[in-house]
């Protein structure tokens, strides 16, 4: 019980730290670097600005694809179950009517 709680704490803290880091890094990358000289040493921490556009777009598309596929698999499975159930009920009704 206690170790679950500790694990929860660690996961929550990790998510918090990750979100803050990503936010600060991306903000500096997109909003502050254009105003910094190209010779300044801080430029070495950031890849080329094109990637500031490409990476989020690629991640968004990937995320959308994952969510869409998950949704379709669940819906197909549910429809198949419904069709099987309807067929079963039809068969039983047919047998009883005979």
């Amino acid at each position, binding site marked *: *019980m206690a170790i679950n709680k500790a694990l*929860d704490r660690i996961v*929550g803290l990790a*998510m918090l730290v990750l979100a803050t880091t990503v936010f600060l890094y991306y*903000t500096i990358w997109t909003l502050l670097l*254009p105003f910094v000289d190209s010779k300044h040493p801080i430029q070495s921490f950031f890849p080329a600005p094109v990637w500031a556009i490409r990476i989020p777009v690629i991640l968004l598309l990937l995320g959308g694809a994952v969510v869409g596929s998950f949704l379709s698999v669940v819906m197909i499975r549910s429809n198949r179950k419904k069709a099987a159930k309807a067929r079963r009920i039809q068969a039983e009704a047919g047998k009883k009517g005979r």
Partner: protein
Amino acid sequence: MTRAQQQLSIGVLLASVYMAAFLGLVPLPEKIQNDVIPVLPLWAIVSFGCLLLCQLGWGVLTFNDVPEAHEELMKEIQEARADLQKKGVEVD
């Protein structure tokens, strides 16, 4: 004014301000116009994602166990299960 109307009007306001800046209707320094304005929507989406992740992480971090509620819930589940099975509904 409903909440939806409020959100929509704020959204329209922000969109029009951004549109004015994007189309160059407002004279801005060239650096800002070319490098910062086009990337603002994507930055907003990324920051919103980070905000959501922060809220999730904070919630997970500060959530405390409630053992009595857990026991009560388990008992209610068992009662419901027994009741439904008596009435002939299939329960997993």
